[in-house]
């Protein structure tokens, strides 16, 4: 095939493609709606991912925690499920399940559909909902962190492993520091994720506000 032949074919097929694919421009709004919906769908998928990770984490904890004493070498090579261990496990599972339930509620309540009638209003509602959702999530994460700390100290006192107010021990300070670091990391990650979704929706909204509704 010569170059001229390629050019002729390109032009001929371009004409053919235009005839076949001539799109009605009224579908522009549909395209925008699809893009918006895919962004929302992505957020919903993230919730599903978080729930999966949490469930796997909890399951691993159930499997590993009875063997912790063995793994740490405290009890020798003997499997033993102690009352203290069981208590810690149940407490951890309860808090974990609260977090799972919170995300499950968010996942099941999250609507990815964008109404045909008024995309602008839907976008505004979705942006507001995302901001509210971020506040809820941050409150829950911080609340859970404080709860874990308080329950941990209270159970230590109850089980005779030290006083509630005895927080300046090296091991407690180290675990508290590690916990705070993980908490900050998670908060930054979530805030960034939410902000990127909000920005994307705001961009779509700005397009509507610039030019009026299509």
């Amino acid at each position, binding site marked *: 095939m010569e170059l001229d032949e390629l050019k002729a074919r390109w*032009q001929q*097929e*371009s004409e053919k493609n235009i005839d076949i694919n001539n799109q009605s421009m009224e579908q522009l709004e549909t395209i925008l709606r699809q893009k918006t919906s895919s962004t929302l769908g992505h957020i919903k998928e993230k919730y599903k991912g978080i729930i999966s990770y949490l469930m796997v984490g909890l399951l691993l904890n159930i499997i590993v925690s009875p063997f912790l004493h063995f793994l740490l070498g405290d009890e020798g090579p003997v499997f033993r499920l102690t009352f203290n261990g069981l208590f810690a496990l149940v407490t951890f599972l309860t808090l974990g399940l609260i977090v799972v339930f919170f995300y499950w509620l968010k996942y099941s309540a999250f609507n990815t559909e964008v109404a045909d009638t008024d995309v602008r209003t839907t976008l505004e509602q979705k942006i507001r909902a995302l901001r509210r959702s971020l506040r809820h999530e941050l409150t829950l994460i911080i609340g859970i962190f404080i709860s874990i700390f308080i329950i941990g100290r209270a159970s230590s006192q109850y089980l005779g492993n030290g006083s509630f107010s005895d927080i300046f021990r090296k091991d407690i300070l180290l675990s508290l520091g590690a916990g705070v670091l993980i908490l900050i990391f998670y908060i930054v990650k979530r805030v960034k994720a939410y902000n990127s979704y909000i920005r994307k929706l705001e961009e779509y909204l700005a397009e509507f506000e610039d030019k009026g509704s299509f």
Partner: protein
Amino acid sequence: MKEEFLQAIDEHQGIILKVCRMYCSDNSDAEDLYQDILLALWKAWPKFRRDAKISTWMYRVGLNQAISRLRNSKRNVPRESLNFVHDTIPANEQNRLDIQFDKELQTAIAALGRFDRALLMLYLDEKTYREIAEILGVSESNVGVKINRIKKQLKEKIKP
């Protein structure tokens, strides 16, 4: 403004299809790029100065979109596929594209770079060097040199 935009797109939508044909290898990919270009045109419309031809502007925006998309995909940034969009919203059959991809052309352009594909597309569209230079923002002499090089490359590829 709405009417003006719709009319412009309607008259020149062949440009978007050509860009899709040059930069995509299947319809699913082409649909995604088609949507991206439409959105980019929509966003750029208020800033479009009427001193340039609409077709030149559309080529510029469309090619920019296609090139940056290709760059992103080469960086392995995962893109939301159109299939995912179709999972969330039932696909409207009327919106689906059915672009005829020329296998020989695909083979010929496979080795070309992102920018060279744009040059080839404009050359195949019989744009003058001046128009190509205007669209791509390079000098006319640069266009001439590059097109000659592409022609040589293609002649090797599409030997009868």
